[in-house]
């Protein structure tokens, strides 16, 4: 995107100017900045996701700076985020991470988008010992590499499918046959496999399990197979574009089972707008939802306050990816303040020992660095709005089944 490139250039120029100004005066003011590197897919097929993350980080940095910055050892540090666009190209994300650490000298790093790229870039930050927060990586394969400097704000994939399976099987004993259609891609496939596993342990019959290639323009063949298998529950994974097309073609080809679950598109308002009437009654799960209510010790405070800050800056409501990005910043800030230092090792230890409430939920990282303390909400689109149906504490309604 042209604008992002320009803004990066002007930003770099401004940063250089600031650094020079610092050198010419006391030499200390250049030190009073905490720089966080953020390689993001700001252009290319993943750009909608990249932009979401950027919005989250920006809100955190702006809020932190408006409150005087991050206090360390009696000094106030300003937050500065250095963005690099890796154009949805994972190898370039890894190069960008390396360059941010070695040339831009960032103190900390935010991972690139998604499990695949976050995993690829994690080896770089591990090598240099730079604490890294992954805001949008959920697959356990990202965290089981034995790395010490990587922390993630998404719980493992099965925390999304398990509550769904619980609710559906408890509410409707007639749901027996499950058809799964998965995008052949790290996260969408991993979550489909969790669904497959969870369904089988509950004695549900998985009647079809098909994968489709990235960039598939037509799902008629898969849907025809699924229809022939007469499923009670269709579970489809992919991103917005895929899922809108799948839902539309399901309708066109007369496949309308009582339960339709899609991950991960329905959490975004674009999905509901683009899906129209067909989005109705689709169930889904995500790591966060604006309806959750937590009281945190972070800079945003409560979930309500976060929502308000979000609406003020961007209008509308934040979705889970945006909130997770802002939470990654808030958690990093808490760790820096706790360590009372910007030393990478000390901040890393503070992250590992962290156990706090935030607007995003309780934050405690497990042995591998992946968060273990979140309870991801399950929701369903009812009357054009996502309605939370789990967990019980923040429930707004009950799961509805589509009539045959």
């Amino acid at each position, binding site marked *: 995107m042209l604008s992002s490139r320009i803004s990066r250039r002007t930003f770099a120029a401004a940063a250089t100017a600031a650094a020079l100004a610092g050198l010419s005066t006391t030499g200390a003011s250049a030190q009073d900045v905490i720089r966080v590197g953020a390689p993001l897919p700001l252009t290319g097929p993943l750009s909608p996701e990249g932009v979401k993350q950027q919005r989250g980080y920006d809100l955190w940095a702006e809020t932190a700076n408006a409150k005087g910055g991050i206090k360390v050892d009696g000094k106030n540090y300003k937050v500065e985020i250095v963005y690099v666009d890796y154009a949805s190209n994972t190898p370039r994300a890894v190069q960008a991470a390396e360059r941010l650490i070695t040339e831009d000298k960032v103190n900390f790093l935010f991972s690139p988008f998604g499990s695949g790229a976050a995993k690829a870039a994690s080896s770089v930050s591990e090598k240099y010992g730079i604490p890294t927060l992954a805001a949008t990586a959920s697959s356990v394969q990202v965290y089981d590499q034995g790395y010490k400097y990587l922390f993630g704000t998404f719980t493992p994939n099965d925390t999304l499918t398990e509550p769904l399976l619980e609710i559906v099987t408890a509410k409707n004993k007639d749901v027996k046959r499950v058809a799964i259609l998965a995008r052949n891609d790290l996260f969408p496939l991993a979550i489909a496999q969790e669904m497959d596993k969870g369904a089988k342990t509950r004695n549900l019959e998985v009647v079809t399990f098909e994968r489709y290639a990235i960039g598939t323009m037509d799902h*008629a063949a*898969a849907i025809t197979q699924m229809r*022939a298998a007469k499923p009670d529950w269709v579970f489809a994974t992919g991103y917005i*574009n895929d899922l*809108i097309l799948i839902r539309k*073609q399901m309708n066109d080809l007369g496949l309308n089972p009582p339960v339709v679950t899609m991950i991960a598109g329905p959490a975004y308002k674009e999905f509901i707008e683009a899906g129209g009437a067909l989005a109705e009654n689709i169930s889904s799960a995500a790591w966060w939802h604006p309806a959750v209510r937590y009281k945190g010790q972070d800079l945003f405070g409560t979930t309500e306050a976060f929502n308000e800050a979000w609406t003020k800056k961007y209008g509308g409501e934040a979705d889970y990816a945006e909130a997770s990005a802002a939470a990654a910043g808030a958690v990093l800030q808490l760790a820096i303040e706790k360590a009372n230092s910007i030393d990478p090792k000390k901040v890393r230890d503070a992250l590992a020992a962290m156990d706090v409430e935030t607007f995003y939920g309780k934050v405690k990282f497990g042995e591998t660095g992946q968060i273990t303390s979140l309870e991801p909400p399950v929701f369903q689109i009812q009357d054009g709005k996502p309605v939370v149906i789990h967990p019980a504490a923040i429930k707004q309604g009950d799961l509805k089944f589509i009539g045959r």
Partner: protein
Amino acid sequence: MIYLQVLANGLVLGGLYACIAVGFSLVWGVLNVINILHGTFIVLGSYVAYYAYAYAGIHPFASVVIAGALLYVVGHGIQAGVINRVITAPVLITLTLTFGLDLMLNNAMLVAFTADYKKVNLANPLGSIEIGPVFLPGDRVAAMVLALLLTLLLYRLLRDSRIGRAIVAVRMDREAAALMGVDVKRINAVTFGLGALMAGAAGALLSIIYPISPLNSSMFLGKAFVVCVLGGLGSVPGAMVGGLALGIIESFGASWFGPEHAVTLSFGLLLLLLFVRPSGLLGKRGYE
């Protein structure tokens, strides 16, 4: 019984592929320009239909005319103003030029429309037609019929009109056509304009089927490429046959080997065909 449905899926999909490819084939065949802009033109056509429906309530099928006319002007302008300057250069030069223009236009669209997916949701959806065990999606069938009509129109235009004969003449022999008094530069611009018109019209038709985003342009371009090579370059019936063949192959491939192998299969067959019949299924020189 399921094979009837698979065949129907393939035919409907193939009709859409043909409609995506016909303009691309025309430009490649006549001008020897591989127009990388084609996918972006299609998406632009979809946006015209989307905004016409959202703000003026114009049905996307009616927008075919608006999108086609608008894209014709854009295409004519680009050819006359930019591509004509290097039209006699080797094919790689024009390919690089359209590639560069595509980057600019596509990024401009990302800035103007954002990458968020939009979709035309008709107030009165066309639903499905049920014939025995076979479901036919109404909107796809209607889009396909309209696309076929448009393609037929293009075919008649090339065969029967003065300008059409001039296009075919340029396609067969540029120098000879010029010697016969054909204004080759003008014909180039008209042809490129027609290619863009077909892309815009296809985009308007597809707007009721696919979510719309500038990111989809490469997807359309890729299909157009395969269809053209499969069917044979530069002939309208070739694009039709190539599109239908690809649709049916993908549909059966997906149902036999699973959707993740459909694309592999179609490209495998494409390679095989290039060995056996390098000019494509209906490839021949010139429009008859």
